[in-house]
Protein backbone atom coordinates (compact mmCIF):
# COMPACT_ATOMS: atom_id res chain seq x y z
CA UNK A 1 0.00 0.00 0.00
CA UNK A 2 1.20 3.52 -0.75
CA UNK A 3 2.40 5.33 2.36
CA UNK A 4 0.07 8.23 3.07
CA UNK A 5 2.71 10.87 3.51
CA UNK A 6 5.45 12.38 1.35
CA UNK A 7 8.82 10.71 2.04
CA UNK A 8 11.41 12.89 3.77
CA UNK A 9 13.78 12.80 0.80
CA UNK A 10 11.17 14.21 -1.59
CA UNK A 11 10.18 16.80 1.00
CA UNK A 12 13.80 17.92 1.41
CA UNK A 13 14.37 18.03 -2.34
CA UNK A 14 11.22 20.12 -2.77
CA UNK A 15 12.40 22.45 -0.01
CA UNK A 16 15.80 22.75 -1.70
CA UNK A 17 14.16 23.67 -5.04
CA UNK A 18 12.01 26.29 -3.30
CA UNK A 19 15.05 27.76 -1.54
CA UNK A 20 16.96 27.84 -4.82
CA UNK A 21 14.10 29.82 -6.39
CA UNK A 22 14.25 32.22 -3.46
CA UNK A 23 18.03 32.60 -3.81
CA UNK A 24 18.16 32.89 -7.59
CA UNK A 25 15.53 33.73 -10.19
CA UNK A 26 14.37 30.62 -12.06
CA UNK A 27 15.09 32.45 -15.32
CA UNK A 28 18.78 32.21 -14.40
CA UNK A 29 18.72 28.47 -13.67
CA UNK A 30 20.46 26.10 -16.06
CA UNK A 31 17.96 24.35 -18.31
CA UNK A 32 18.84 21.00 -16.68
CA UNK A 33 17.95 22.36 -13.24
CA UNK A 34 14.54 23.47 -14.51
CA UNK A 35 13.94 19.98 -15.92
CA UNK A 36 15.07 18.34 -12.66
CA UNK A 37 12.70 20.57 -10.71
CA UNK A 38 9.81 19.67 -13.05
CA UNK A 39 10.54 15.95 -12.73
CA UNK A 40 10.55 16.30 -8.94
CA UNK A 41 7.25 18.20 -8.83
CA UNK A 42 5.58 15.74 -11.21
CA UNK A 43 6.87 12.79 -9.20
CA UNK A 44 5.54 14.31 -5.98
CA UNK A 45 2.20 14.92 -7.70
CA UNK A 46 2.03 11.32 -8.93
CA UNK A 47 2.74 10.11 -5.40
CA UNK A 48 0.09 12.44 -3.98
CA UNK A 49 -2.46 11.07 -6.46
CA UNK A 50 -1.63 7.56 -5.23
CA UNK A 51 -1.99 8.72 -1.62
CA UNK A 52 -5.41 10.20 -2.42
CA UNK A 53 -6.50 7.00 -4.18
CA UNK A 54 -5.36 4.92 -1.22
CA UNK A 55 -7.24 7.12 1.24
CA UNK A 56 -10.36 6.98 -0.93
CA UNK A 57 -10.10 3.18 -1.14
CA UNK A 58 -9.83 2.91 2.65
CA UNK A 59 -12.89 5.13 3.06
CA UNK A 60 -14.86 3.26 0.40
CA UNK A 61 -14.35 0.11 2.50
CA UNK A 62 -15.11 2.04 5.68
CA UNK A 63 -13.26 2.20 8.96
CA UNK A 64 -14.06 2.49 12.65
CA UNK A 65 -13.70 6.14 13.71
CA UNK A 66 -11.26 5.74 16.60
CA UNK A 67 -9.00 3.50 14.52
CA UNK A 68 -9.05 6.08 11.74
CA UNK A 69 -8.19 8.88 14.15
CA UNK A 70 -5.38 6.88 15.75
CA UNK A 71 -3.80 5.91 12.42
CA UNK A 72 -4.45 9.03 10.33
CA UNK A 73 -4.39 12.05 12.67
CA UNK A 74 -0.55 12.11 12.68
CA UNK A 75 -0.63 12.56 8.88
CA UNK A 76 -2.56 15.83 8.87
CA UNK A 77 0.25 18.13 10.13
CA UNK A 78 2.52 16.80 7.38
CA UNK A 79 -0.18 17.38 4.75
CA UNK A 80 -0.71 20.93 6.07
CA UNK A 81 3.02 21.59 6.01
CA UNK A 82 3.34 20.25 2.43
CA UNK A 83 0.45 22.47 1.35
CA UNK A 84 2.13 25.52 2.90
CA UNK A 85 5.44 24.74 1.18
CA UNK A 86 3.71 24.36 -2.21
CA UNK A 87 1.86 27.66 -1.78
CA UNK A 88 5.05 29.47 -0.77
CA UNK A 89 6.75 28.16 -3.92
CA UNK A 90 3.74 29.24 -6.03
CA UNK A 91 3.81 32.66 -4.42
CA UNK A 92 7.51 33.02 -5.13
CA UNK A 93 7.05 32.33 -8.84
CA UNK A 94 3.68 33.96 -9.45
CA UNK A 95 5.15 37.35 -10.38
CA UNK A 96 7.76 35.87 -12.75
CA UNK A 97 6.99 36.01 -16.46
CA UNK A 98 9.79 33.91 -17.98
CA UNK A 99 9.07 30.60 -19.64
CA UNK A 100 10.92 28.43 -17.11
CA UNK A 101 9.06 29.96 -14.16
CA UNK A 102 5.79 29.54 -16.06
CA UNK A 103 6.42 25.82 -16.61
CA UNK A 104 7.32 25.23 -12.99
CA UNK A 105 4.35 27.31 -11.85
CA UNK A 106 1.96 25.22 -13.98
CA UNK A 107 3.38 22.02 -12.47
CA UNK A 108 3.06 23.50 -8.98
CA UNK A 109 -0.58 24.48 -9.55
CA UNK A 110 -1.34 20.95 -10.68
CA UNK A 111 0.37 19.56 -7.56
CA UNK A 112 -1.40 22.10 -5.35
CA UNK A 113 -4.79 20.98 -6.65
CA UNK A 114 -4.19 17.30 -5.83
CA UNK A 115 -2.51 18.05 -2.50
CA UNK A 116 -5.44 20.25 -1.49
CA UNK A 117 -7.96 17.53 -2.36
CA UNK A 118 -5.98 15.02 -0.31
CA UNK A 119 -5.51 17.38 2.65
CA UNK A 120 -9.18 18.47 2.63
CA UNK A 121 -10.48 14.89 2.55
CA UNK A 122 -8.14 13.84 5.35
CA UNK A 123 -9.13 16.87 7.45
CA UNK A 124 -12.85 16.38 6.80
CA UNK A 125 -12.89 12.72 7.78
CA UNK A 126 -10.67 13.36 10.81
CA UNK A 127 -13.12 16.03 11.93
CA UNK A 128 -15.94 13.50 11.62
CA UNK A 129 -13.89 10.92 13.49
CA UNK A 130 -13.31 13.44 16.30
CA UNK A 131 -16.99 14.30 16.75
CA UNK A 132 -18.36 13.04 20.07
CA UNK A 133 -20.94 10.27 20.00
CA UNK A 134 -24.53 11.54 19.80
CA UNK A 135 -26.12 12.16 23.16
CA UNK A 136 -28.66 9.43 23.87
CA UNK A 137 -31.15 8.82 26.66
CA UNK A 138 -29.80 5.44 27.69
CA UNK A 139 -32.65 4.58 30.06
CA UNK A 140 -35.15 5.28 27.29
CA UNK A 141 -33.18 3.22 24.80
CA UNK A 142 -33.08 0.38 27.33
CA UNK A 143 -36.84 0.44 27.97
CA UNK A 144 -37.74 0.77 24.28
CA UNK A 145 -35.38 -2.04 23.37
CA UNK A 146 -36.78 -4.24 26.13
CA UNK A 147 -40.33 -3.50 24.94
CA UNK A 148 -39.39 -4.46 21.38
CA UNK A 149 -37.81 -7.67 22.62
CA UNK A 150 -40.92 -8.63 24.61
CA UNK A 151 -43.10 -7.86 21.59
CA UNK A 152 -40.91 -10.00 19.31
CA UNK A 153 -39.79 -7.02 17.28
CA UNK A 154 -36.27 -8.33 16.82
CA UNK A 155 -34.92 -10.18 13.82
CA UNK A 156 -32.04 -12.61 13.83
CA UNK A 157 -30.15 -14.21 11.00
CA UNK A 158 -28.52 -17.60 10.91
CA UNK A 159 -25.78 -16.99 8.37
CA UNK A 160 -23.75 -14.00 7.19
CA UNK A 161 -25.30 -14.28 3.73
CA UNK A 162 -28.83 -14.29 5.12
CA UNK A 163 -27.98 -11.32 7.30
CA UNK A 164 -26.44 -9.40 4.42
CA UNK A 165 -29.47 -10.06 2.27
CA UNK A 166 -31.86 -9.15 5.07
CA UNK A 167 -30.12 -5.84 5.69
CA UNK A 168 -29.35 -4.92 2.13
CA UNK A 169 -32.14 -6.15 -0.08
CA UNK A 170 -34.31 -3.07 -0.31
CA UNK A 171 -34.89 -2.80 -4.05
Amino acid at each position, binding site marked *: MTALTMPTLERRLFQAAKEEAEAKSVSEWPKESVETCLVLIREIRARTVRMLETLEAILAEGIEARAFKRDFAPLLPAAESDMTAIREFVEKLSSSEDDASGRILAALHSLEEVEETYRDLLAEVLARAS*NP*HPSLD*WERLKSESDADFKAGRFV*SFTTNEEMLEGLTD*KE
Partner: protein
Amino acid sequence: MRYSLEFRESVRDYLRQLPLSRTARVKLNTRLIALTAEVPDSFRSDPENRPEPTSRFYHFTYLFRDANRSCTLYVVVDDSSAAYGVMSIVYVDCQIG
Protein backbone atom coordinates in the same frame (compact mmCIF):
# COMPACT_ATOMS: atom_id res chain seq x y z
CA MET B 1 -15.61 -15.86 19.52
CA ARG B 2 -18.21 -15.27 16.85
CA TYR B 3 -21.55 -13.94 18.04
CA SER B 4 -25.02 -14.35 16.60
CA LEU B 5 -26.59 -11.04 15.71
CA GLU B 6 -30.08 -9.79 16.22
CA PHE B 7 -31.48 -6.44 15.20
CA ARG B 8 -34.43 -4.40 16.36
CA GLU B 9 -36.81 -4.36 13.41
CA SER B 10 -36.65 -0.56 13.41
CA VAL B 11 -32.85 -0.78 13.01
CA ARG B 12 -33.12 -3.28 10.16
CA ASP B 13 -35.70 -1.13 8.39
CA TYR B 14 -33.58 1.99 8.88
CA LEU B 15 -30.51 0.28 7.40
CA ARG B 16 -32.49 -1.00 4.43
CA GLN B 17 -33.80 2.46 3.65
CA LEU B 18 -30.54 4.37 3.77
CA PRO B 19 -30.07 6.37 0.54
CA LEU B 20 -26.80 4.67 -0.38
CA SER B 21 -25.58 2.89 -3.47
CA ARG B 22 -26.07 -0.86 -3.33
CA THR B 23 -22.29 -1.35 -3.28
CA ALA B 24 -21.93 0.96 -0.29
CA ARG B 25 -24.83 -0.74 1.51
CA VAL B 26 -23.29 -4.18 1.03
CA LYS B 27 -19.91 -2.94 2.28
CA LEU B 28 -21.51 -1.12 5.18
CA ASN B 29 -23.48 -4.15 6.30
CA THR B 30 -20.50 -6.46 5.85
CA ARG B 31 -18.41 -4.22 8.10
CA LEU B 32 -21.29 -3.82 10.54
CA ILE B 33 -21.50 -7.58 10.86
CA ALA B 34 -17.72 -7.79 11.35
CA LEU B 35 -17.71 -5.03 13.98
CA THR B 36 -20.42 -6.76 16.00
CA ALA B 37 -20.38 -10.50 15.28
CA GLU B 38 -16.60 -10.62 15.42
CA VAL B 39 -15.95 -7.83 17.88
CA PRO B 40 -12.92 -8.46 20.12
CA ASP B 41 -13.61 -8.47 23.88
CA SER B 42 -10.91 -5.80 24.25
CA PHE B 43 -12.96 -3.45 22.05
CA ARG B 44 -16.18 -4.02 23.98
CA SER B 45 -14.51 -3.64 27.35
CA ASP B 46 -12.65 -0.45 26.41
CA PRO B 47 -14.29 2.29 28.55
CA GLU B 48 -14.05 4.64 25.54
CA ASN B 49 -16.52 2.37 23.77
CA ARG B 50 -19.13 2.24 26.52
CA PRO B 51 -21.38 5.04 27.75
CA GLU B 52 -20.65 3.92 31.32
CA PRO B 53 -18.43 1.10 32.58
CA THR B 54 -21.43 -0.91 33.83
CA SER B 55 -23.68 -0.14 30.85
CA ARG B 56 -25.11 -3.03 28.91
CA PHE B 57 -24.33 -1.12 25.72
CA TYR B 58 -21.18 -0.54 23.75
CA HIS B 59 -21.09 1.90 20.87
CA PHE B 60 -18.91 2.87 17.95
CA THR B 61 -18.81 5.12 14.92
CA TYR B 62 -18.09 3.82 11.46
CA LEU B 63 -16.83 6.16 8.71
CA PHE B 64 -17.21 5.52 5.01
CA ARG B 65 -17.64 7.26 1.65
CA ASP B 66 -20.27 6.70 -0.99
CA ALA B 67 -20.48 8.64 -4.26
CA ASN B 68 -18.11 11.34 -2.99
CA ARG B 69 -20.16 11.78 0.17
CA SER B 70 -18.64 11.23 3.58
CA CYS B 71 -20.91 9.23 5.85
CA THR B 72 -20.93 8.52 9.58
CA LEU B 73 -22.80 5.57 11.05
CA TYR B 74 -23.23 5.53 14.81
CA VAL B 75 -24.11 2.11 16.25
CA VAL B 76 -25.23 0.99 19.71
CA VAL B 77 -25.03 -2.69 20.60
CA ASP B 78 -26.54 -4.39 23.63
CA ASP B 79 -23.99 -7.01 24.69
CA SER B 80 -25.77 -8.16 27.86
CA SER B 81 -26.33 -11.57 26.22
CA ALA B 82 -22.72 -11.88 25.01
CA ALA B 83 -22.21 -14.79 27.42
CA TYR B 84 -24.88 -16.65 25.43
CA GLY B 85 -23.22 -15.74 22.16
CA VAL B 86 -25.69 -13.03 21.13
CA MET B 87 -25.21 -9.35 20.26
CA SER B 88 -28.23 -7.11 19.76
CA ILE B 89 -27.99 -4.03 17.57
CA VAL B 90 -30.46 -1.66 19.14
CA TYR B 91 -29.72 1.75 17.64
CA VAL B 92 -28.13 3.19 14.51
CA ASP B 93 -27.94 6.70 13.13
CA CYS B 94 -26.37 7.55 9.79
CA GLN B 95 -25.28 11.05 8.80
CA ILE B 96 -24.69 11.31 5.06
CA GLY B 97 -22.78 14.10 3.36
